[in-house]
C-alpha cells in the first residue's frame, strides 16, 4: 500500500551509508555508565549501591510512577559508584557505574513471562523495560494501555526512519523480522486490533520486500501490511504518519489512541516480541554510528550504558578531530558535550562530525522567501512566528498556532538564512504556556 494524501515536507539528504551493515555486537567494555532516566517521565531510583555485584538482566533501577520504565543491568560486574551527571533530557540524573567482569553471567530471575490477559500483557511490557526506541522514549506499556481500550482498532508501526544517517530500524526489518512480527501479533491479539500497518519510506525496498514476503508466508497478509511512504522528512513524525496512513488529522496534544490507533516504533515492537519469547529485558541497543569523523561507520549492538567513546573506538575511532557529537538523528538529535556518557535506550544513532559538518552555520537576515512555510507539515509560518516571538507577542503566537509546531526542524533545515526557527518556536511555546498559567 502507499499513500494518496501528502503533507508538506522537506527533501533532506539521506546519508543512509550503513543501510547494508548488519548490526555487529561490540565486545563488552570495561565500564558501563547506566543513567537512571531513559524515558520521558519520572527518573528511576537506583536499587543497587556501591560494591554490589550485578548480573546481566538484573533490575538496577525502578520507580513507582505511571509514566516510567524499569532499568536493568546490561553486563555482569561490580557497581563502583552512583554518580550524578547532566542527563540527555536536561537536568541532573543519577548514573550507576558498573565495572564489568566480562563473564556476562545471566541473572537467575530471568523467565519467560506468562501472558493470559491484556493486563498481563501490559505488565510484561513494562517489565521488559522497553520505551519508544525511535527516540521518543515514551514508556511503551503506557501506550499499550489506552483509556479507551475498546475503541482502538488499528496498529501503526513507525518504520519510516526519516532521519538521515540512521539505519537501525531498516536492519530490524531485515535481520529481526521474526521478533517484529511476533510482537505485532501479540499486540494485535491482546489489544484486539483489526489491522496493522508498517509505514516504511520507499528508500528501504529490501525491508519492504522482506516484510511483504513474511506476511504472505505466514498467512498474515489479510491484517498486516507494509505501507510505503515518500522518502521525505518528517514522514516518521507521529502526527504526519497517522495522517498519511489513515487520512486522520491529529492535532498537537491528541494521542493516537483517541483516533483509535496504537502507534509504536518498529524496533520497539521487535524488542517487545523478543522479550515475550525469552524474558530477557531490553539491554542491548542497536545504534547507527556514522558521521564524517567516524573511521568505519556501522551498526553496532552495544550494551546499554556503554560510553560513546567505547562504541566509537569499536568503529575504528575518530578519523579526524571531532567537533560535535549528536545522539539520535541530525534533525532532532541532541548534542553532547563529552563522549564519556553512556548510551540510553532511545539513542538510535551516534553521529560524530568534524570541523566542517559540525559547525553551526552563520545566521543572516530573513529574506522572506517563505521556504520555511512551504516545508512545514502543518503549514505554519515560522518566519512570522519568529517575528512574533522576538516581539514577545503571545496573542500573535497563539493566533499563528505556535502550539501546533512539533519541533521537527524542517523549517530550520531549509532556511537559506540559517535562522534558528525551531528554537524560537520552542521558546515561543514556552511563552504561550507561561501566559496560560
Amino acid at each position, binding site marked *: 500500500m502507499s499513500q494518496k494524501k501528502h503533507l508538506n515536507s522537506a527533501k*533532506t*539528504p539521506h546519508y543512509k551509508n550503513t543501510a547494508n551493515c548488519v548490526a555487529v555486537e561490540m565486545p563488552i567494555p*570495561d565500564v558501563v555508565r547506566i543513567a537512571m532516566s531513559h524515558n520521558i517521565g519520572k527518573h528511576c531510583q537506583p536499587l543497587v549501591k556501591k560494591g554490589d555485584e550485578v548480573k546481566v538482566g538484573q533490575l538496577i533501577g525502578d520507580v513507582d510512577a505511571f509514566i516510567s520504565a524499569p532499568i536493568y543491568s546490561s553486563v555482569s560486574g561490580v557497581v563502583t559508584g552512583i554518580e550524578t551527571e547532566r542527563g540527555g533530557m536536561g537536568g541532573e540524573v543519577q548514573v550507576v557505574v558498573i565495572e564489568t567482569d566480562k563473564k556476562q553471567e545471566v541473572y537467575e530471575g530471568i523467565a519467560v513471562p506468562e501472558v493470559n490477559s491484556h493486563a498481563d500483557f501490559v505488565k510484561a511490557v513494562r517489565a521488559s523495560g522497553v520505551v519508544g526506541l525511535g527516540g521518543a522514549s515514551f514508556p511503551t506499556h503506557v501506550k499499550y494501555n489506552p483509556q479507551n481500550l475498546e475503541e482502538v482498532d488499528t496498529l501503526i508501526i513507525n518504520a519510516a526512519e526519516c532521519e*538521515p544517517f540512521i539505519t537501525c530500524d531498516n536492519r530490524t526489518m531485515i535481520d529481526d523480522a521474526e521478533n517484529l512480527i511476533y510482537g505485532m501479533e501479540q499486540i494485535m491479539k491482546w489489544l484486539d486490533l483489526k489491522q496493522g500497518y508498517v509505514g516504511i519510506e520507499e528508500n528501504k525496498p529490501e525491508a519492504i520486500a522482506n516484510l511483504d514476503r513474511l506476511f504472505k508466508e505466514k498467512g498474515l497478509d489479510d491484517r498486516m501490511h507494509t505501507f510505503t511512504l515518500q522518502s521525505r522528512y518528517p514522514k516518521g513524525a507521529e502526527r504526519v504518519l497517522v495522517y498519511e496512513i489513515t487520512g486522520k*488529522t491529529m*492535532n498537537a496534544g491528541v494521542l493516537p489512541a483517541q483516533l483509535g490507533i496504537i502507534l509504536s516504533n518498529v524496533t520497539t515492537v521487535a524488542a517487545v516480541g523478543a522479550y515475550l519469547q525469552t524474558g530477557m529485558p531490553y539491554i542491548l541497543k542497536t545504534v547507527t554510528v556514522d558521521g564524517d569523523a567516524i573511521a568505519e561507520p556501522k551498526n553496532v549492538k552495544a550494551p546499554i550504558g556503554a560510553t560513546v*567513546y567505547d562504541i566509537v573506538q569499536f568503529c575504528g575511532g*575518530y578519523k579526524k578531530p*571531532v*567537533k*560535535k*557529537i*549528536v545522539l539520535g538523528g*541530525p*534533525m*532532532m*538529535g*541532541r*548534542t*553532547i*558535550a*563529552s*563522549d*564519556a556518557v553512556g548510551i540510553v535506550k532511545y539513542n538510535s544513532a551516534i*553521529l560524530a*562530525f568534524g570541523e566542517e*559538518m*559540525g*559547525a*553551526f*552555520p552563520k545566521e*543572516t*537576515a*530573513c*529574506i*522572506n*522567501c*517563505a521556504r520555511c*512555510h512551504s516545508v512545514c507539515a502543518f*503549514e505554519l*509560518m515560522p*518566519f*512570522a512566528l519568529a517575528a512574533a516571538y522576538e516581539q514577545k507577542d503571545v496573542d500573535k503566537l*497563539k*493566533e*499563528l*498556532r505556535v*502550539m*501546533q509546531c512539533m519541533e521537527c*526542524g524542517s523549517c*530550520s*533545515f*531549509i*532556511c*537559506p*538564512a*540559517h535562522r*534558528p526557527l*525551531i*528554537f524560537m518556536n520552542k521558546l515561543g511555546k514556552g511563552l504561550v504556556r507561561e501566559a496560560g498559567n
Partner: protein
Amino acid sequence: MEKNYNTNLLVGQGPHIHTTLDTQKTMLMVMAALAPALVVSTVVFGPRVLLLTAVCIIASVAFEACWNVLMKKEQTAMDLSAALTGTLIAFNVPSGLPIWIAIIGCFVAIIIVKQLFGGLGKNFVNPAITARIVLFISYATAMTTWPLPKAQQTADVVTGATPLGVLAENAGELPSNVSMFIGTIGGSMGEVSAIALLIGGAFLVWKKIISPIIPACFIGTVFVIALIYYAAAGVPECAADKGVFGMAIFHILAGGVMLGAIFMATDYVTTPTLTMGKVIFGVGCGVLTMVIRLWGAYPEGVSFSILLMNILTPLIDQLTTKQMVKKYEQKEGAK
C-alpha cells in the same frame, strides 16, 4: 588503558544538517538567470550595456559596503543582494544613460530604499523599481531617450520611440511581435528580449528559487485585459495588422512586463508570502499596468504597478494570514 575522552564538544540546537542553498547562492542564481537577457541586450545595443551593468553592480556593492563600515554593521556587501539590485537597476534604464545618473540610481536603491529601512529583508518596496521611478521623474529626458537597436540606427537617427511610445502616440509603425519576442526593439537595457527573460524565469522556477504564481498571474492578467479592451474598443491604426489577439500578445511582450513579472514582482522581501497573496499581487500588478497603459498619462506602467503593489503587500499578507488562520481554526477546532 588511558582513555582520551573528548570533553569540549560543540553543543547547541539542531538541526545539525542544513540545505546547501543560502542567501548568497539564491542571489547568484537570480543573476545567472539574467545572463541571457544581458547577452541579447549587448548584441542589440552594443558594448555600452556591459559598461553600464558593471558600473551599477560596482556602485551598488560599494554603497552597501560603505554604509556597513560607516554604521559599524556587519559587512553584507558580499551576499550578492546589492549586486543583484545593481544589475536590475541597469536592466531598467536606457543603454545611453549617463553614468553619473545610473550611480545616483544605485544610491537611491541601496542607501535610501534598502539601508535606511534596516537592510536586507526590511525594505518594503523594491529598491531597483523605486530607483527607476526616482530617476524617471528626476531625469525624464535622459530616462526616455531610447537608443535604437544598433542595426536600425542610421547616421542621423540613433534614438527612437519604444513600441509602447509608438502605440501611445498612435503614430509610426509598431515592430512585429516576433522581433519583440526576440528583442530587436528599442527599450530599457534588460527588458527588450522576452525569450531571454523567459529562459531565465524557467531556470528559476526549475531551481525552485521563485514560484511561478506571480509571473503567471501578472502576465495572464495583462493578456486578458488587452484582449477584452481591443475587442471592445477596436485596434488602433498603427497596429491595424496585428488584430485583437496580436495586440494582447504585443502587450505582454512590450515594455517591462516580462522583466517586471519574472524578476521584480518575485522579489521575496517586497511581495506576499502565501499563495493566495501571490495571486492577488500578480493580478493586481497586471490590472494596474494595463490601467496606466490604456488610460494613464504614461505609455508604460509596470514599475508603478509593482511599486503600488509593494506598498499593499503588508496588507495582503495580513488578510491572507487571517484567512489561513480561520481555515485552520475550523479544521483544528478553537484552541
